[in-house]
Protein backbone atom coordinates (compact mmCIF):
# COMPACT_ATOMS: atom_id res chain seq x y z
CA UNK A 1 0.00 0.00 0.00
CA UNK A 2 1.43 3.34 -1.01
CA UNK A 3 1.55 6.62 0.84
CA UNK A 4 -0.94 8.01 -1.64
CA UNK A 5 -3.45 5.32 -0.83
CA UNK A 6 -3.02 6.20 2.82
CA UNK A 7 -3.51 9.89 2.05
CA UNK A 8 -6.64 9.05 0.07
CA UNK A 9 -8.02 7.28 3.12
CA UNK A 10 -7.68 10.49 5.12
CA UNK A 11 -9.62 12.65 2.67
CA UNK A 12 -13.01 12.21 4.37
CA UNK A 13 -11.62 13.33 7.72
CA UNK A 14 -9.86 16.31 6.15
CA UNK A 15 -13.06 17.32 4.40
CA UNK A 16 -15.09 17.04 7.56
CA UNK A 17 -12.62 19.11 9.54
CA UNK A 18 -12.35 21.76 6.84
CA UNK A 19 -16.11 22.01 6.70
CA UNK A 20 -16.37 22.49 10.44
CA UNK A 21 -13.73 25.21 10.18
CA UNK A 22 -15.26 27.07 7.28
CA UNK A 23 -18.91 26.02 7.16
CA UNK A 24 -18.92 26.30 3.42
CA UNK A 25 -18.61 23.23 1.27
CA UNK A 26 -16.81 24.90 -1.59
CA UNK A 27 -14.36 26.79 0.58
CA UNK A 28 -13.76 23.65 2.64
CA UNK A 29 -13.08 21.48 -0.39
CA UNK A 30 -10.75 24.13 -1.80
CA UNK A 31 -8.82 24.03 1.43
CA UNK A 32 -8.60 20.22 1.32
CA UNK A 33 -7.55 20.37 -2.32
CA UNK A 34 -4.74 22.79 -1.49
CA UNK A 35 -3.76 20.58 1.40
CA UNK A 36 -3.57 17.46 -0.80
CA UNK A 37 -1.57 19.24 -3.47
CA UNK A 38 0.83 20.58 -0.89
CA UNK A 39 1.13 17.15 0.71
CA UNK A 40 1.92 15.53 -2.64
CA UNK A 41 4.51 18.16 -3.47
CA UNK A 42 6.17 17.36 -0.13
CA UNK A 43 5.57 13.67 0.13
CA UNK A 44 9.31 13.04 0.16
CA UNK A 45 9.40 14.94 3.46
CA UNK A 46 6.94 12.61 5.17
CA UNK A 47 8.69 10.17 7.46
CA UNK A 48 7.24 6.70 7.16
CA UNK A 49 6.06 5.35 10.46
CA UNK A 50 5.04 8.74 11.82
CA UNK A 51 1.45 9.89 12.12
CA UNK A 52 0.17 10.67 8.65
CA UNK A 53 -3.09 12.17 9.87
CA UNK A 54 -1.25 14.61 12.11
CA UNK A 55 1.06 15.49 9.22
CA UNK A 56 -1.88 16.26 6.94
CA UNK A 57 -3.67 18.26 9.59
CA UNK A 58 -0.51 20.27 10.14
CA UNK A 59 -0.43 21.17 6.46
CA UNK A 60 -4.11 22.04 6.43
CA UNK A 61 -3.90 24.09 9.59
CA UNK A 62 -1.01 26.12 8.21
CA UNK A 63 -2.85 26.77 4.95
CA UNK A 64 -5.91 27.84 6.89
CA UNK A 65 -3.98 30.22 9.10
CA UNK A 66 -2.19 31.70 6.08
CA UNK A 67 -5.50 32.27 4.34
CA UNK A 68 -6.87 34.03 7.39
CA UNK A 69 -3.78 36.17 7.71
CA UNK A 70 -4.15 37.20 4.10
CA UNK A 71 -7.84 37.92 4.52
CA UNK A 72 -7.16 39.97 7.63
CA UNK A 73 -4.56 41.99 5.87
CA UNK A 74 -7.17 42.86 3.31
CA UNK A 75 -9.63 43.97 5.98
CA UNK A 76 -6.96 45.40 8.19
CA UNK A 77 -9.40 47.63 10.01
CA UNK A 78 -10.98 44.63 11.66
CA UNK A 79 -8.75 42.71 14.04
CA UNK A 80 -11.26 39.89 14.60
CA UNK A 81 -12.30 37.09 12.28
CA UNK A 82 -14.65 38.78 9.90
CA UNK A 83 -13.14 37.05 6.93
CA UNK A 84 -13.75 33.63 8.40
CA UNK A 85 -17.18 34.46 9.74
CA UNK A 86 -18.40 35.57 6.38
CA UNK A 87 -17.56 32.25 4.90
CA UNK A 88 -19.59 30.51 7.53
CA UNK A 89 -22.83 30.03 5.69
CA UNK A 90 -25.83 29.65 7.96
CA UNK A 91 -27.70 26.48 7.18
CA UNK A 92 -31.44 26.08 7.70
CA UNK A 93 -32.46 25.13 11.22
CA UNK A 94 -33.44 21.51 11.67
CA UNK A 95 -35.10 20.71 14.96
CA UNK A 96 -32.59 18.75 16.98
CA UNK A 97 -29.70 20.46 15.29
CA UNK A 98 -30.45 23.70 17.07
CA UNK A 99 -27.86 22.93 19.68
CA UNK A 100 -25.30 22.30 17.00
CA UNK A 101 -26.12 25.58 15.34
CA UNK A 102 -25.49 27.43 18.57
CA UNK A 103 -22.27 25.61 18.93
CA UNK A 104 -21.25 26.43 15.40
CA UNK A 105 -22.08 30.06 15.95
CA UNK A 106 -20.20 30.15 19.22
CA UNK A 107 -17.19 28.52 17.57
CA UNK A 108 -16.97 31.44 15.18
CA UNK A 109 -16.43 33.73 18.15
CA UNK A 110 -13.27 31.94 19.27
CA UNK A 111 -9.83 33.06 18.23
CA UNK A 112 -8.33 31.06 15.43
CA UNK A 113 -5.85 29.52 17.87
CA UNK A 114 -8.57 28.48 20.29
CA UNK A 115 -10.72 27.11 17.49
CA UNK A 116 -7.89 24.95 16.25
CA UNK A 117 -7.27 23.38 19.66
CA UNK A 118 -10.94 22.91 20.50
CA UNK A 119 -11.63 21.32 17.11
CA UNK A 120 -8.57 19.12 16.82
CA UNK A 121 -9.33 17.64 20.22
CA UNK A 122 -13.13 17.80 20.08
CA UNK A 123 -13.85 16.91 16.47
CA UNK A 124 -10.82 14.83 15.58
CA UNK A 125 -10.15 13.35 18.99
CA UNK A 126 -6.44 14.12 18.85
CA UNK A 127 -4.43 13.72 22.03
CA UNK A 128 -2.83 16.78 23.56
CA UNK A 129 0.50 15.60 22.31
CA UNK A 130 -0.75 15.18 18.75
CA UNK A 131 -2.43 18.58 18.82
CA UNK A 132 0.80 20.12 20.09
CA UNK A 133 2.59 18.53 17.14
CA UNK A 134 0.06 19.80 14.62
CA UNK A 135 0.07 23.34 15.96
CA UNK A 136 3.77 23.31 16.80
CA UNK A 137 3.31 24.64 20.33
CA UNK A 138 4.10 23.12 23.75
CA UNK A 139 1.49 20.93 25.44
CA UNK A 140 1.06 23.57 28.14
CA UNK A 141 -0.10 26.03 25.49
CA UNK A 142 -2.54 23.46 24.16
CA UNK A 143 -3.96 23.00 27.63
CA UNK A 144 -4.42 26.68 28.36
CA UNK A 145 -5.91 27.43 24.93
CA UNK A 146 -8.25 24.52 25.26
CA UNK A 147 -9.40 25.62 28.71
CA UNK A 148 -10.00 29.18 27.57
CA UNK A 149 -11.67 28.15 24.35
CA UNK A 150 -14.06 25.66 25.90
CA UNK A 151 -14.99 27.95 28.72
CA UNK A 152 -15.72 30.74 26.26
CA UNK A 153 -17.91 28.38 24.26
CA UNK A 154 -19.78 27.35 27.37
CA UNK A 155 -20.43 30.95 28.37
CA UNK A 156 -21.57 31.89 24.91
CA UNK A 157 -23.97 29.01 24.81
CA UNK A 158 -25.28 29.65 28.31
CA UNK A 159 -25.47 33.40 27.98
CA UNK A 160 -27.23 35.08 25.10
CA UNK A 161 -30.11 33.31 23.49
CA UNK A 162 -29.26 32.82 19.83
CA UNK A 163 -32.35 30.59 19.72
CA UNK A 164 -34.75 33.51 19.60
CA UNK A 165 -33.44 34.44 16.19
CA UNK A 166 -32.85 30.92 14.98
CA UNK A 167 -36.41 29.86 15.74
CA UNK A 168 -37.76 32.16 13.09
CA UNK A 169 -35.57 30.82 10.35
CA UNK A 170 -37.55 28.36 8.24
Amino acid at each position, binding site marked *: *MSLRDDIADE*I*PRLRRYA*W*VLLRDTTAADDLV*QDCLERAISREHLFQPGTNLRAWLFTIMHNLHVNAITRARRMVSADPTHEAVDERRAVSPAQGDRLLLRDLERALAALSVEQQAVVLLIGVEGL*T*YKEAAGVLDVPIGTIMSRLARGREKL*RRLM*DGEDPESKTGKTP
Partner: protein
Amino acid sequence: MSIEDRIDDTELHAYLDGELGEEESRAVEAWLAAHPDDAARVAAWRGQKNALAGLGEEILDETPPERMTRALDAAPLPATRRDRASWMRAAAALVVFVAGAAAGWWLHGSGLTGAATREVVFVDRAAGAHVVFTRERRHAVEARADKEERHLVRWLSRRLGRNLNPPSLDGAGFRLIGGRLVADDGGPAAQFMYQDSEKRRLTIYVRRARDVKNVAFRIAETRGVSAFYWIEKPYAYALIGKMERQELLKLGRLVFDHLNAPAR
Protein backbone atom coordinates in the same frame (compact mmCIF):
# COMPACT_ATOMS: atom_id res chain seq x y z
CA MET B 1 -9.21 20.37 51.16
CA SER B 2 -6.03 22.38 51.29
CA ILE B 3 -4.86 25.03 48.86
CA GLU B 4 -2.24 22.73 47.28
CA ASP B 5 -4.93 20.27 46.29
CA ARG B 6 -6.85 22.83 44.31
CA ILE B 7 -7.59 21.46 40.88
CA ASP B 8 -7.34 24.03 38.12
CA ASP B 9 -9.28 24.14 34.88
CA THR B 10 -6.56 22.65 32.72
CA GLU B 11 -6.63 19.56 34.91
CA LEU B 12 -10.38 19.34 34.64
CA HIS B 13 -10.07 19.37 30.87
CA ALA B 14 -7.28 16.85 30.92
CA TYR B 15 -9.54 14.64 33.02
CA LEU B 16 -12.39 15.04 30.54
CA ASP B 17 -10.08 14.21 27.63
CA GLY B 18 -8.66 11.09 29.22
CA GLU B 19 -5.20 12.59 29.50
CA LEU B 20 -4.76 11.83 33.20
CA GLY B 21 -3.45 8.74 34.91
CA GLU B 22 -5.61 6.73 37.26
CA GLU B 23 -4.48 8.42 40.41
CA GLU B 24 -4.88 11.92 39.03
CA SER B 25 -8.29 11.02 37.70
CA ARG B 26 -9.39 9.86 41.13
CA ALA B 27 -8.21 13.13 42.65
CA VAL B 28 -10.24 15.07 40.09
CA GLU B 29 -13.30 12.94 40.72
CA ALA B 30 -13.03 13.61 44.43
CA TRP B 31 -12.73 17.32 43.72
CA LEU B 32 -15.77 17.29 41.48
CA ALA B 33 -17.82 15.45 44.06
CA ALA B 34 -17.09 18.25 46.47
CA HIS B 35 -17.47 21.08 43.97
CA PRO B 36 -20.79 20.95 42.13
CA ASP B 37 -20.08 24.15 40.20
CA ASP B 38 -17.01 22.64 38.65
CA ALA B 39 -18.87 19.39 38.08
CA ALA B 40 -21.52 21.33 36.17
CA ARG B 41 -18.89 23.01 34.03
CA VAL B 42 -17.21 19.71 33.25
CA ALA B 43 -20.60 18.31 32.27
CA ALA B 44 -21.15 21.28 29.96
CA TRP B 45 -17.73 20.82 28.36
CA ARG B 46 -18.44 17.15 27.90
CA GLY B 47 -21.72 17.99 26.16
CA GLN B 48 -19.80 20.42 23.97
CA LYS B 49 -17.22 17.84 23.10
CA ASN B 50 -19.84 15.26 22.16
CA ALA B 51 -21.63 17.80 20.01
CA LEU B 52 -18.35 18.73 18.31
CA ALA B 53 -17.61 15.11 17.55
CA GLY B 54 -20.93 14.94 15.68
CA LEU B 55 -20.30 18.01 13.53
CA GLY B 56 -20.19 17.23 9.83
CA GLU B 57 -20.28 13.50 10.54
CA GLU B 58 -22.20 12.83 7.34
CA ILE B 59 -19.24 14.10 5.34
CA LEU B 60 -17.24 11.08 6.45
CA ASP B 61 -19.54 8.86 4.38
CA GLU B 62 -19.47 10.98 1.25
CA THR B 63 -17.44 10.07 -1.78
CA PRO B 64 -14.78 12.78 -2.01
CA PRO B 65 -14.91 15.05 -5.03
CA GLU B 66 -13.08 13.59 -7.95
CA ARG B 67 -10.58 16.41 -8.23
CA MET B 68 -9.14 15.33 -4.89
CA THR B 69 -8.41 11.79 -5.89
CA ARG B 70 -7.19 13.11 -9.21
CA ALA B 71 -4.72 15.30 -7.37
CA LEU B 72 -3.31 12.15 -5.81
CA ASP B 73 -3.04 10.30 -9.09
CA ALA B 74 -1.87 13.00 -11.41
CA ALA B 75 0.71 14.84 -9.37
CA PRO B 76 4.32 14.34 -10.39
CA LEU B 77 6.42 11.67 -8.81
CA PRO B 78 10.05 11.09 -9.62
CA ALA B 79 9.30 7.46 -10.52
CA THR B 80 9.45 7.06 -14.29
CA ARG B 81 6.64 4.55 -14.34
CA ARG B 82 4.20 7.12 -13.11
CA ASP B 83 5.45 9.71 -15.56
CA ARG B 84 4.79 7.37 -18.39
CA ALA B 85 1.42 6.44 -16.95
CA SER B 86 0.21 10.02 -16.78
CA TRP B 87 1.49 10.75 -20.24
CA MET B 88 -0.37 7.73 -21.54
CA ARG B 89 -3.50 8.82 -19.74
CA ALA B 90 -3.31 12.15 -21.49
CA ALA B 91 -2.88 10.40 -24.82
CA ALA B 92 -5.81 8.10 -24.07
CA ALA B 93 -7.99 11.06 -23.18
CA LEU B 94 -7.21 12.66 -26.51
CA VAL B 95 -7.98 9.58 -28.54
CA VAL B 96 -11.24 8.93 -26.75
CA PHE B 97 -12.25 12.53 -27.06
CA VAL B 98 -11.76 12.48 -30.79
CA ALA B 99 -13.71 9.27 -31.08
CA GLY B 100 -16.47 10.69 -28.88
CA ALA B 101 -16.69 13.87 -30.90
CA ALA B 102 -17.04 11.85 -34.07
CA ALA B 103 -19.81 9.78 -32.54
CA GLY B 104 -21.55 12.92 -31.36
CA TRP B 105 -21.38 14.47 -34.79
CA TRP B 106 -22.71 11.35 -36.38
CA LEU B 107 -25.56 11.10 -33.89
CA HIS B 108 -26.44 14.70 -34.46
CA GLY B 109 -28.05 13.81 -37.76
CA SER B 110 -29.37 10.43 -36.70
CA GLY B 111 -32.48 11.57 -34.87
CA LEU B 112 -31.36 10.05 -31.58
CA THR B 113 -31.51 12.54 -28.75
CA GLY B 114 -30.98 12.95 -25.03
CA ALA B 115 -30.33 9.92 -22.88
CA ALA B 116 -30.46 7.55 -25.85
CA THR B 117 -27.71 9.51 -27.58
CA ARG B 118 -25.61 9.45 -24.47
CA GLU B 119 -26.14 5.74 -24.13
CA VAL B 120 -24.75 5.27 -27.61
CA VAL B 121 -21.87 7.59 -26.79
CA PHE B 122 -21.12 5.50 -23.72
CA VAL B 123 -20.92 2.29 -25.76
CA ASP B 124 -18.91 4.02 -28.42
CA ARG B 125 -16.36 5.25 -25.89
CA ALA B 126 -16.10 1.85 -24.28
CA ALA B 127 -15.54 0.31 -27.72
CA GLY B 128 -13.08 3.06 -28.65
CA ALA B 129 -11.04 2.44 -25.52
CA HIS B 130 -11.10 -1.27 -26.29
CA VAL B 131 -9.80 -0.76 -29.80
CA VAL B 132 -7.08 1.65 -28.73
CA PHE B 133 -5.70 -0.31 -25.81
CA THR B 134 -6.09 -3.92 -26.86
CA ARG B 135 -3.76 -3.16 -29.75
CA GLU B 136 -0.95 -2.35 -27.40
CA ARG B 137 1.50 -5.09 -26.61
CA ARG B 138 3.72 -3.62 -23.95
CA HIS B 139 1.40 -0.92 -22.63
CA ALA B 140 -1.97 -2.57 -22.90
CA VAL B 141 -2.61 -1.98 -19.23
CA GLU B 142 -1.43 0.61 -16.79
CA ALA B 143 -1.40 -1.64 -13.75
CA ARG B 144 -0.76 -5.34 -14.22
CA ALA B 145 -2.83 -7.94 -12.46
CA ASP B 146 0.06 -10.35 -11.94
CA LYS B 147 2.23 -7.76 -10.21
CA GLU B 148 -0.14 -5.40 -8.45
CA GLU B 149 -3.71 -6.63 -8.52
CA ARG B 150 -4.53 -5.21 -5.10
CA HIS B 151 -3.28 -1.81 -6.08
CA LEU B 152 -5.17 -1.99 -9.37
CA VAL B 153 -8.44 -2.83 -7.67
CA ARG B 154 -8.00 -0.26 -4.95
CA TRP B 155 -6.97 2.48 -7.29
CA LEU B 156 -9.79 2.02 -9.79
CA SER B 157 -12.33 1.49 -7.00
CA ARG B 158 -11.28 4.75 -5.46
CA ARG B 159 -11.53 6.63 -8.71
CA LEU B 160 -14.91 5.21 -9.54
CA GLY B 161 -16.23 5.55 -6.01
CA ARG B 162 -17.34 1.93 -5.66
CA ASN B 163 -15.86 -1.42 -4.94
CA LEU B 164 -14.73 -2.68 -8.29
CA ASN B 165 -13.54 -6.22 -8.16
CA PRO B 166 -12.81 -7.47 -11.65
CA PRO B 167 -14.60 -10.80 -12.16
CA SER B 168 -12.66 -13.96 -12.67
CA LEU B 169 -13.28 -15.30 -16.16
CA ASP B 170 -10.76 -18.11 -15.81
CA GLY B 171 -13.54 -20.65 -16.24
CA ALA B 172 -14.22 -19.22 -19.69
CA GLY B 173 -10.53 -19.23 -20.56
CA PHE B 174 -9.89 -15.52 -20.08
CA ARG B 175 -7.26 -14.34 -17.66
CA LEU B 176 -7.22 -10.85 -16.16
CA ILE B 177 -4.07 -9.06 -17.33
CA GLY B 178 -4.65 -5.70 -15.72
CA GLY B 179 -6.44 -2.41 -16.01
CA ARG B 180 -6.24 1.26 -16.46
CA LEU B 181 -7.96 4.53 -15.88
CA VAL B 182 -9.55 6.05 -18.95
CA ALA B 183 -10.77 9.61 -19.30
CA ASP B 184 -14.39 9.62 -20.42
CA ASP B 185 -15.84 13.03 -21.11
CA GLY B 186 -13.95 14.56 -18.24
CA GLY B 187 -14.82 11.79 -15.83
CA PRO B 188 -12.96 8.63 -14.87
CA ALA B 189 -13.74 5.25 -16.36
CA ALA B 190 -12.11 1.98 -15.44
CA GLN B 191 -11.03 -0.56 -18.01
CA PHE B 192 -10.07 -4.12 -17.12
CA MET B 193 -8.44 -6.24 -19.77
CA TYR B 194 -8.51 -10.02 -20.17
CA GLN B 195 -6.77 -12.35 -22.58
CA ASP B 196 -7.19 -15.99 -23.54
CA SER B 197 -4.68 -18.56 -24.75
CA GLU B 198 -5.20 -17.42 -28.35
CA LYS B 199 -4.36 -13.87 -27.32
CA ARG B 200 -7.89 -12.69 -27.88
CA ARG B 201 -8.66 -9.75 -25.65
CA LEU B 202 -11.76 -8.68 -23.80
CA THR B 203 -12.30 -5.47 -21.86
CA ILE B 204 -14.74 -4.49 -19.16
CA TYR B 205 -15.49 -0.79 -19.04
CA VAL B 206 -17.20 0.91 -16.11
CA ARG B 207 -18.04 4.50 -15.46
CA ARG B 208 -20.60 6.54 -13.60
CA ALA B 209 -23.97 6.70 -15.29
CA ARG B 210 -24.07 10.45 -15.08
CA ASP B 211 -26.46 11.23 -17.87
CA VAL B 212 -27.95 8.00 -19.15
CA LYS B 213 -31.01 5.99 -18.22
CA ASN B 214 -31.08 2.46 -16.88
CA VAL B 215 -31.16 -0.18 -19.58
CA ALA B 216 -31.21 -3.95 -19.33
CA PHE B 217 -28.73 -6.06 -21.32
CA ARG B 218 -28.09 -4.89 -24.82
CA ILE B 219 -25.69 -5.80 -27.51
CA ALA B 220 -24.26 -3.28 -29.92
CA GLU B 221 -21.72 -3.47 -32.69
CA THR B 222 -19.44 -0.56 -33.29
CA ARG B 223 -15.86 0.04 -34.41
CA GLY B 224 -15.56 -3.55 -35.52
CA VAL B 225 -16.19 -4.98 -32.05
CA SER B 226 -19.21 -6.21 -30.12
CA ALA B 227 -20.38 -4.69 -26.88
CA PHE B 228 -22.56 -6.26 -24.28
CA TYR B 229 -23.71 -3.52 -21.92
CA TRP B 230 -26.16 -2.51 -19.29
CA ILE B 231 -26.78 0.58 -17.25
CA GLU B 232 -27.81 0.32 -13.68
CA LYS B 233 -27.47 3.63 -11.97
CA PRO B 234 -25.21 4.93 -10.66
CA TYR B 235 -22.96 2.94 -13.00
CA ALA B 236 -22.80 1.95 -16.65
CA TYR B 237 -21.04 -1.27 -17.65
CA ALA B 238 -19.82 -2.66 -20.93
CA LEU B 239 -18.05 -5.86 -21.92
CA ILE B 240 -16.28 -5.48 -25.24
CA GLY B 241 -14.75 -8.12 -27.46
CA LYS B 242 -14.31 -9.20 -31.03
CA MET B 243 -16.36 -12.40 -30.97
CA GLU B 244 -19.62 -14.09 -31.77
CA ARG B 245 -22.65 -12.78 -30.02
CA GLN B 246 -23.38 -16.06 -28.26
CA GLU B 247 -19.97 -16.18 -26.70
CA LEU B 248 -20.09 -12.53 -25.69
CA LEU B 249 -23.51 -13.02 -24.18
CA LYS B 250 -22.30 -15.96 -22.13
CA LEU B 251 -19.33 -13.96 -20.84
CA GLY B 252 -21.57 -10.96 -20.25
CA ARG B 253 -23.75 -13.02 -17.93
CA LEU B 254 -20.71 -14.04 -15.91
CA VAL B 255 -19.56 -10.46 -15.62
CA PHE B 256 -23.00 -9.24 -14.67
CA ASP B 257 -23.47 -11.89 -11.99
CA HIS B 258 -20.13 -11.05 -10.50
CA LEU B 259 -20.50 -7.28 -10.52
CA ASN B 260 -23.99 -7.51 -9.12
CA ALA B 261 -23.02 -9.78 -6.27
CA PRO B 262 -23.68 -8.11 -2.91
CA ALA B 263 -21.17 -5.35 -2.29
CA ARG B 264 -18.27 -6.31 -0.09
